[in-house]
């Protein structure tokens, strides 16, 4: 039997989409859906999808259950006496309404799409910058509530991934700081450039800053880390060098350094 299905399964944005496609392709009257036929075709689709290892979301399975339920309702003989008292609603009605609603929004989506086509053929060239006074130039982002939540989430995410070194003021040593910098390059910025300023700003004591400074000098000497500067007077960045792994291959390097600072 020839299947009306479009076996580019993924074209379907959910079960309503699939059902609509079945109905429209076969020019079925949506107000009188042959439920047995449609159910069979729907299940055939699901079978094919399983064979093709396509993952079907839960709503596809839920729809299958709904279809089978409607089908069984239509098969059950009704009590004619009861039917006269309270005429039963066509069990398909709810599904049909859902399908029609879905179809309306599909058309609406297409309409929006067409509008975008027009807008993409139109250009505007505003010159407001020429007329903005120099002083009221507030560079920045025009922000929305969504930006606010998103930003907060980003801040928390960053905080979570930040290596936490609880260094009490007096205990911190140069090797501690070497391990600290190493952790940063291993976790936070494998290949990127780390701002030296930010690194220093994270330190909570003078001693920690001095140790960090000495640690950086040692690392540069070992060619584990390099310094970069974009332009004159620009920010100094730290970059992982080829010697990074070698420098940390043994603890002896650290031990030697530790000795040196005793």
């Amino acid at each position, binding site marked *: 039997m020839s299947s009306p299905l479009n*076996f*580019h*399964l*993924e*074209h379907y*944005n*959910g*079960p*309503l*989409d699939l059902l609509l496609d079945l109905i*429209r*392709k076969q*020019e079925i*009257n*949506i107000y009188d859906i042959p439920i047995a036929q449609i159910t069979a075709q729907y299940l055939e689709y699901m079978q094919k999808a399983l064979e*093709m*290892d*396509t993952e079907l*979301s*839960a*709503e596809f399975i839920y*729809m299958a259950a709904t279809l089978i339920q409607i089908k069984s309702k239509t098969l059950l003989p009704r009590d004619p006496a009861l039917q006269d008292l309270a005429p039963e609603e066509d069990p398909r009605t709810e599904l049909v309404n*859902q399908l*029609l*609603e*879905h*179809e*309306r*929004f*599909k*058309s*609406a*989506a*297409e*309409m*929006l*799409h067409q*509008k*975008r*086509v*027009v*807008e*993409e*053929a*139109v*250009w*505007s060239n*505003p*010159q*407001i910058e*020429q*007329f903005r006074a120099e002083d009221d130039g507030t560079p920045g982002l025009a922000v*929305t*509530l*969504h930006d606010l939540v*998103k930003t907060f989430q980003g801040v928390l995410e960053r905080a979570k991934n930040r290596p936490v070194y609880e260094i009490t003021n007096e205990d911190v040593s140069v090797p501690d700081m070497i391990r600290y910098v190493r952790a940063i390059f291993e976790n936070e910025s494998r290949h990127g450039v780390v701002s030296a300023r930010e690194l220093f700003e994270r330190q909570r004591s003078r001693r920690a800053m001095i140790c960090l400074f000495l640690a950086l000098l040692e690392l540069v000497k070992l060619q584990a880390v390099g310094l970069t500067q974009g332009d004159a007077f620009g920010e100094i960045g730290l970059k992982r060098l080829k010697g990074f792994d070698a420098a940390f291959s043994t603890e002896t390097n650290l031990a030697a350094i530790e000795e040196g600072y005793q």
Partner: protein
Amino acid sequence: MDEIDASQLTEERPVENLDAHLKAILEAIVYVTDEPLSAQQMAAALERPIDVVKRLLDELVEEFAAPGHGLSIREIAGGYKMATKAEHHEAVRAFVKKLTPPLKLSLAALETLAVIAYKQPVTTPEIMDIRGVQGASVLQTLLDRKLIAEAGRKTVVGKPILYKTTKEFLVQFGLKDLSELPTLKEFEELGRLSVSEPEPEPQAELPLETPDAPPAKNA
């Protein structure tokens, strides 16, 4: 030609010259501004009567609509905005240096946007109900692109967040206001027609995305 000063025009069609002057300023303002400004905003800032400003703006819209003009002044998002006419897009495209990247929206995103546009303010569960799909990831895309925004909370159990479309939505889709959208009923009639006429003619390819789906594993 001498500049016309309002105080000098005591008689003899003073209105006409004043109007020409105001109209020129309005043209310059519409040209300069980057987002659609309403007649009210312009009238208030220029300290001129709203009805005069409105009439002159409408004259400008009409004048630029003539076929000899490649520019148009369009009413979008409750305001006026100058832009090139779509019909000249092929010739103009080559000269546009800073081509703004097209707003790429998936079919799912467009559908979700349509639901929000018509049902606003609307909650996530309501959107998912209509689309028959679980999943609200496209909401995040729409929020990121500022096409929709939060609109308070619905006073039902769980107090879900309500969403609405934004001014940016009107701008991006070239709509004067929401009432310019066809009614859902009109789509219903379209749907009915499609039973007898199932093949709408194919359209040109567009720089939009495929619906959210990986390519078929087996063809």
